[in-house]
């Protein structure tokens, strides 16, 4: 029972960070700021949600699958953020050189 309440708290907190990241995505002025909000908040939201689900998992196999999912989603979202930021920087440089 205590574990379930703890899991619920973690998942709700995770959802809160996802919502915060989405608000940042919608309200921040440029791509880099939006990316900043999204990658930070979503990384935290993902970790908290995975932790909450892992507490509810029935077996060690399920926990290890959740850990794997967390690891690969976290790494790929970090790489995605890097690629988007790099693209922004390069196209900004290209447009200043062009003008």
């Amino acid at each position, binding site marked *: 029972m205590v574990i379930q309440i703890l899991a619920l708290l973690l998942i709700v907190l995770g959802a809160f960070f996802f919502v915060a990241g989405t608000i940042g995505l919608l309200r921040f002025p440029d791509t880099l700021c939006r990316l900043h909000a999204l990658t930070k908040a979503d990384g935290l939201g993902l970790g908290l949600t995975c932790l909450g689900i892992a507490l509810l998992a029935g077996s060690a196999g399920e926990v290890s699958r959740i850990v*794997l999912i967390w690891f*690969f989603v976290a*790494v*790929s979202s970090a*790489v995605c953020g*890097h*690629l988007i930021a*790099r693209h922004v920087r390069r196209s900004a440089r290209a447009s200043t050189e062009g003008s």
Partner: protein
Amino acid sequence: MTDPLLIFDVILGLAIVALAVAVLAMHDRFAMIVLFIVFGLLSALAWVRLSAPDVALAEAAIGTGLTGALLLTTLHHIRATPPAPVPVPAGAIIANLGLCGLIFGGLVVAFLSTPLQAPGLALPVAQNMEASGVAHPVTAVLLNFRAYDTLMEVVVLLAAIVAVWMVERGTAQAPSPVMGEIYRGFARLALPAIVIIGTYLLWVGAYAPGGAFQGGAVLAAVGLLLLLSRLYRPQPAHRPLARLGFVLGTAVFAGIALLVASGGRVPFEYPAAHAKTLILLIEGMVTISIAVTLAALFHGREPEYASVSENHK
């Protein structure tokens, strides 16, 4: 007292329809593709809610992941070499409208003529599971009870790559995007995991959701990562191997059907003692073909000798 999941289902259904409308209403091609990918993800979620995890896996891996990648790479090619805008003749639009209307009408008729609350084919499938050689009903249907349809699906993929290699022969190659060192490191980290996940999806298909199409699509992601990170560059000398990969699934599938038929049985009526071995052999070969074909479709053009110098930096 309403089921809270019902509210979720209604919101999910409305979101899918809204996304479909948004995809068609968008004017920016890139935004269209991104929305299409989101549409596919939500559709996969809807299949999960309909208790069809096999379809959900296929939708997520093929319908969303690989189709999204194919659309994005096509957009990249179009941007690099903008084609002259060709006005669409009115006749073509009318013909397309007519064909779409025919398909829509056919679907409506099929839907309306299906008796409500009919038992369906679930019972015959359940009764014949022992003869199928596998423990997962979906795999039994796909690879045994209606294997002919599945063979045709594999042939469709083969036809697609043959068409792409013929159509794109001699067209200019768009420069592939440079993804950088961090992406390359990510590819090195992710590649072994994707290989294991793809093979696991193939193997688990015998008794749980998964199978050749899902596993093949995941393994095709290996090809995409290798191509994008330039850890592998297609060479003209690799063409025979690629061709072997394209036809392997169809050839083994059809070959086993003919072999079974030559023993005085109906094609795909596997002898019960060898059913599991044969199904696993077919699925394995089909998985390889699907993975190679989808990766080749992503690369697009057939590697040719004249363009070797272009491919190298």
